[in-house]
């Protein structure tokens, strides 16, 4: 088959997805914009009235902003990790999910750090972090790690987009002019020649290895922000690997949910098949077992040590946060394990359900890491108002959190309007490789 014709076919197949916007998607986009606007309003309220409008006080200085930050950044790192693995080891079914993973990686790395900015009381002093950095501070490491990782992920995402931009540039005669210009600019003269292809494959492969390493380093740094303090519940030597496993757990969960929604909404049953869900489900099963093991190990050692502050923390977890604890560490782990362990339960819907439970459970797990620890400090505040000791998120914080999620989904949709969610170049590469292996097989047989 002529490759140019195949490219044309694929461009034709995916162009409605890029160019046409249905009524449902318009309503959906409108809804997302509305949620974001509520978030923008909440932001201005917070900006003008200060952090008093949030639930954060002297005792609990970090609330759901930091939880969202960790959640999104973890999502990004796990996305980078998974994407790197898929590319580096040339996983057979990578083509259907790789772009979803890459988009998740970059978007969550953009959305996540915004929550840190919302958490900072004196935004006007933000530049001090860059003017007076302390290399020995984990916060500085995190800034360096996030910025380096963000740039790396952008480059990596762009590399994987280039061949598709080139296909769209050459086959979008009927597309709008701005779109043609954008494709031409972003395709940087890629003509899919052998040398160009080899060069691109080589740098993509190097970058995929790089993002795996970056994800591990950056993720560990994020965990060290907590574990290098002496706070009960944070000061743990296994926090870095625990964070990596937890991140992978949420990352795979979000990927499965995204796969389900994209498959259903864009009718991509032909590309995103049951086998992809089962593959992702089994990885989720393995990671959930690991996550469960780490969680048990973490709490078991705290309980067994009988240190007074750890005991106080565990008492808080089993009283005030009893149901959250049960959901995060029992339901959030055991339900996905039960669903994914038995073969007969492994349907697309049940795997997606398991992923949803895992993601929500993990968000609560993050909540339990941040808030109860801050509520049980070494020197407790006494004789003060309840709201100064305990934390409850206000509508401002919820509005901004949902705005973050809405922005994530909106940007995802907008990127899918720019490039197909299934890499066309990947399909062609697969077909080309199949053709080559057939040829060589034929050659062996005839010889």
């Amino acid at each position, binding site marked *: 088959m002529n490759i140019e014709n195949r490219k044309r076919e694929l461009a034709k197949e995916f162009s409605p997805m890029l160019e046409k916007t249905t009524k449902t998607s318009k309503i959906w986009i409108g809804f997302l914009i509305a949620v974001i606007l509520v978030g923008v309003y909440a932001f201005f309220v917070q900006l003008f009235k200060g952090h008093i409008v949030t639930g954060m006080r002297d005792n609990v200085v970090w609330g759901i902003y930091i939880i969202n930050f960790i959640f999104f950044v973890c999502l990004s790192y796990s996305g980078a990790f998974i994407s790197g693995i898929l590319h580096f080891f040339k996983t057979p079914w990578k083509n259907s999910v790789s772009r979803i993973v890459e988009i998740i990686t970059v978007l969550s790395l953009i959305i996540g750090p915004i929550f840190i900015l919302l958490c900072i009381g004196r935004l006007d002093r933000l530049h001090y972090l860059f003017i007076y950095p302390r290399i020995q501070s984990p916060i500085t*490491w995190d800034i360096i790690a996030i910025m380096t990782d963000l740039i790396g992920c952008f480059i990596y995402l762009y590399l994987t987009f280039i061949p598709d931009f080139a296909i769209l540039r050459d086959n979008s005669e009927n597309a709008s002019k701005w779109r043609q210009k954008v494709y031409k600019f972003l395709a*940087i003269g890629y003509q899919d020649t052998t040398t160009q292809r080899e060069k691109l494959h080589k740098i993509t492969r190097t970058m995929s290895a790089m993002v795996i390493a970056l994800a591990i380093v950056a993720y560990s740094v994020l965990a060290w922000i907590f574990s290098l303090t002496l706070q009960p519940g944070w000061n743990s030597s296994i926090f870095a690997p625990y964070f990596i496993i937890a991140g992978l757990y949420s990352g795979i969960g979000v990927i499965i949910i995204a796969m389900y929604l994209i498959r259903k909404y864009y009718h991509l049953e032909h590309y995103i098949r049951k086998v992809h869900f089962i593959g992702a489900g089994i990885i989720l099963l393995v990671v959930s077992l690991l996550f469960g093991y780490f969680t048990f190990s973490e709490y078991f050692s705290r309980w067994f040590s009988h240190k007074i502050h750890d005991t106080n923390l565990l008492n808080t977890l089993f009283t005030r946060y009893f149901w959250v604890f049960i959901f995060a560490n029992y339901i959030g782990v055991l339900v996905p394990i039960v669903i994914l362990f038995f073969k007969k339960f492994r349907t697309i819907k049940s795997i997606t359900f398991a992923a949803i439970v895992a993601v929500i459970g993990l968000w609560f797990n993050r909540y339990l890491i941040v808030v109860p620890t801050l509520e049980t400090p070494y020197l407790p505040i006494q004789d003060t108002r309840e709201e100064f000791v305990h934390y409850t998120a206000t509508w401002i914080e919820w509005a901004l959190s949902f705005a973050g999620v809405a922005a994530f989904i909106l940007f995802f949709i907008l990127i899918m309007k720019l490039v197909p969610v299934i890499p066309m170049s990947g399909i062609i590469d697969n077909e080309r490789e199949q053709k080559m292996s057939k040829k060589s097989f034929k050659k062996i047989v005839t010889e």
Partner: protein
Amino acid sequence: MKSINYKYTIITSLLIAFLFSFNGFSQEDEATDASSYKMRFNFKTVKQYDNSRLLEVSFIGQNKKDRKDKIPVFDAVIKFYNNDNLLGESKTSDEGIAQFAVPGNQIYITDEDGYINLTAKFEGSDGLDEEEEEIQVKDLFLELNLEEIDSVKTVLVKAFTIDSLGVEIPLEEADLIISVGGMISKMKLEEGTIEDGEFEFEFPTDIPGDVNGDILVYSIITDNDDFGNVIQQKTVNWGNIKTKIVKEDNKLWSEAAPIWMYIVLTILLVGVWANYLYTAINLFKIKKEGKEIELKETELNTEH
């Protein structure tokens, strides 16, 4: 010091209840016998550096059989007299100590030999009998001079009494202690004897002093028969501070980060950014090749 001790034996049956109520001892401890306690009423005087005189009474009950068993009498009113002239009164503390400071400008009644007769008196209560002790001291003046003589830091002490005509009479002989103030107590530097009213001492050069190099120097006469306790003090900037140069190790909380941290971070960042650069160079090469192909195609199209 001429001291007349009037010791009274406690007989009253109320004593034990009185003492034990002070100390929170169990009232039910009926095994304790009241007569087994002996009252110790000690009176002393200290002439201080500003010429004021501290009068101090220690009022303690001591078990006759077990001498370690001591019970202070607190809140007992002690009156201090110079002959029959009441100087003031004070209550004993939780430790059984009553103190009263007589100002430096107080004019005392003295006998023909120049002795001041001081009396401390407890007038008794329902539970305790009257106690009284008398001491006789002469008013001694101590002058402490701290001078550098030929670059030698020298402590000069002058001790004298003043007779009725106002003439200074040097002290013939008395034991003297030179101390410096420390954080918890005084540190003794020298023990010597004042002769003909004077004492000289070469101050050591290795006393660090406080943060500013200041040293509080004391000259003390203790338990002298004629003068009681006399203290004089002066502050001088003779401290020899040797600032300890502490080499700061590279720690996470020190000014500079540990060297290994800079090295690791540099290797990591250089490695990563070099890869970004390598990627960017390759992208430019791809772009360049694309442009060349485009040019060739344009040329071919124009030829056709």
